[in-house]
């Protein structure tokens, strides 16, 4: 496939670069990107681009310089990067140094010279190609030109900008101003702004009821969801149940609409027929069962009847209205409250037989957000931060990362991640160029001869 002197020379160059990477890794260990901190990252990047411009301009005088961006260089560098990416993907990236792969830095490839040196060569080939294409711009090849420019900017920014990238974690308790975060290694880091958490809020999906097999500790694939929207069954035999409003004899849905309390919906989990007769989204336990409670530690609770389908499924499944006047008591095996665990209440399960119990899962978070006050240089503003919607303060962005998972929606603190990435402005433009290039290939790729 790769025959001829041109290929031999290009792949020989790649082999030398790999050897250089191994030598650097052996003598200096993994890369510490901190040496590229501002202003050194910018200076090195400018010198690098200046040198590549010089190589391009001197290419006519010294044709050997053209070999850095010819077809052989492109194919050999692509092949080398592909091989290294395969190693990257196949080796567990746990950073362990106690093996041959660890010695070569393959267990933390993104910090290994063996990867960085060939990547820099690949960046050089792509950038020289991009410079040449800008110099001899052909509007009919805009997709290819944008792809080369975009990739070049991303690689240069990623390589020389990594020293300026900073990610720290800030744990903000409600009402207490914080301006010190922690780095990955646990070292304190002073932020140029102050964060005060005003409120943490969370919306949750309705909990689910599963049959748990105590012999092997497995949960059933099927479940019954305690949805707030009646009759909105989802899949695999799941059914939803409306929420009972305890202040009146009616059931209220997620909106203001109310439906008669007699309408409940049943579901099937394997051989078990489940009817949820009552559901309280936020409840507390007392001596008689569960009652509505809007307080820290409250749990969702459902009053359920469960029968084995082999007994009398026809008389049991269906709505509660079906049972009015003909309760079919002989078919009901068990009936009681089921609830999940919280920091205040223990889990309440329903024993079905010697091997099976009905359990309620903890509600999954649907949305969680932190309302915070950000103060910088005497100016303050209140912002809401949630997943996919970070807040911006100067060069920093603040991301919603976590909360006290034990307390869930009652969490008294919020975990925020503060990220400083000053090179992202250039990367963003490059990414959009690459996106345009992809769209160009999709739209006009079929017309190319």
């Amino acid at each position, binding site marked *: 496939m790769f025959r001829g002197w041109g290929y031999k020379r290009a792949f020989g160059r790649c082999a030398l670069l790999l050897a250089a990477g191994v030598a650097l890794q052996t003598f200096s260990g993994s890369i510490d990107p901190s040496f590229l901190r501002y202003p050194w990252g910018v200076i090195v990047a400018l010198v690098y681009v200046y040198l590549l411009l010089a190589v391009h301009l001197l290419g006519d005088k010294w044709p050997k310089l053209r070999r850095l961006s010819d077809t052989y260089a*492109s194919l050999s560098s692509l092949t080398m990067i592909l091989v290294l990416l395969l190693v990257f993907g196949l080796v567990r990236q746990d950073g362990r140094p106690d093996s041959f792969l660890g010695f070569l830095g393959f267990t933390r490839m993104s910090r290994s010279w063996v990867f960085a040196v060939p990547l820099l060569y690949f960046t050089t080939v792509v950038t020289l190609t991009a410079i040449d294409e800008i110099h001899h711009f052909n509007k009919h090849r805009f997709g290819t030109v944008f792809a080369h420019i975009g990739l070049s900017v991303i690689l240069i920014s990623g390589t020389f900008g990594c020293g300026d990238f900073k990610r720290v974690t800030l744990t903000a308790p409600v009402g207490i101003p914080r301006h010190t975060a922690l780095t990955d290694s646990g070292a304190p880091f002073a932020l140029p702004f102050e964060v005060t958490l005003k409120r943490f809020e969370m919306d949750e999906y309705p909990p689910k009821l599963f049959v748990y097999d105590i012999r092997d500790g497995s949960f059933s694939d*099927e479940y019954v969801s305690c949805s707030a929207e009646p009759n909105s069954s989802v899949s695999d035999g799941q059914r939803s149940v409306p929420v009972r409003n305890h202040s009146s004899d009616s059931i209220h849905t997620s909106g203001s609409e109310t439906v008669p309390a007699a309408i409940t919906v049943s579901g099937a989990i394997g051989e078990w027929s489940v009817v949820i007769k009552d559901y309280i989204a936020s409840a507390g336990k007392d001596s008689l069962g569960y009652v509505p409670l809007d307080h820290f530690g409250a749990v969702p609770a459902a009053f359920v009847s469960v029968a084995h389908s082999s007994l009398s499924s026809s008389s049991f499944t269906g709505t509660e209205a079906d049972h009015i006047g003909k309760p079919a008591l002989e078919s009901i095996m068990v009936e009681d409250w089921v609830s999940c665990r919280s920091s205040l209440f223990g889990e309440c399960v329903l024993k079905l037989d010697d091997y099976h119990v009905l359990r309620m899962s903890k509600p999954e978070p649907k949305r969680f957000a932190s309302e915070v006050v950000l103060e910088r240089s005497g100016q303050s503003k209140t912002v809401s931060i949630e997943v996919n919607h970070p807040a911006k303060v100067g060069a920093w962005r603040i991301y919603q990362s976590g909360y006290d998972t034990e307390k869930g929606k009652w969490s008294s603190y919020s975990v925020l991640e503060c990220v400083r990435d000053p090179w992202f402005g250039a990367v963003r433009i490059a990414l959009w160029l690459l996106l345009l290039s992809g769209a160009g290939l999709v739209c006009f790729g079929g017309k190319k001869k």
Partner: protein
Amino acid sequence: MSWNSFIVFAIGAVLFWIAGALVSIFIKKRDSVDRQALPALILTCIGSLVFFAFIIVLWRSLNRPPLRTMGETRLWYSLFLSLVGAAVYAKWRYRWILPFSAVMSTVFVCINIFKPEIHSEALMPALQSVWFVPHVIVYMFAYSLMGAATLFAVFLWWKTSRSKSSRAESASSGAASDVSSVARVETGVTSEDLRICDTLVRIGWGFLTMGIVMGALWAKQAWGDYWAWDPKETWAAATWISYLLYLHLRPHLKDNRYAFALLIFSFILLQMCWWGINYLPAAQGFSVHTY
């Protein structure tokens, strides 16, 4: 309407796809098929419409885009594969493409029937982004195109090998110049075949690029890093580079079987990126993308 209705829609769609494939096979005059090809295309598109109708219904019943689980991505893969097959047939009239795309789509439909993996309406907060739907759909379309390109590569490899063996037989029997041997040599890969293969890969790579960039923009918005060397990202980069190598390499090759082999290899990387990392020991516990 729920996942339980899938089998009804699936059987309907598969029957239309098979009918379209059969009609395309039994069209006799390949060079004048414009009118005859229409029934095959219409049947295939009706099958895709039926399948798409189920996806829309499922989307409404789940109250979220059905793009979260592996089973849900397989739905889109089946749909797009049938559409890519129809598009290739509409443009280039390859009679084998509709049967192959129908079989491939049916295989993924069957996997979804026997192993649904669709259980929850919950959509975790990180997935609630404007990038979620375009990112996954663009990727699924890229996967479908690359699937079609791989089928094409296998077909062209077989064609090349058959042509070479024919030439070898002709040479050994000393009849290289007679009319019958010339006709057999012509069964080899033509420049038009290669152009179609390149076009499929080029458009597929365009979709891959869009998918990878959308993922990067989304990742920046979700957790601050546009690239974090997560195993899924590493394999996505390997797949992207591998197809890029094909696009750079193919025009310089004399023996195109190497290019076809590279396409098949790239498709294996793509499978690793799509679902393989769920089973790859190196990725366990390290990827936020395993599901």
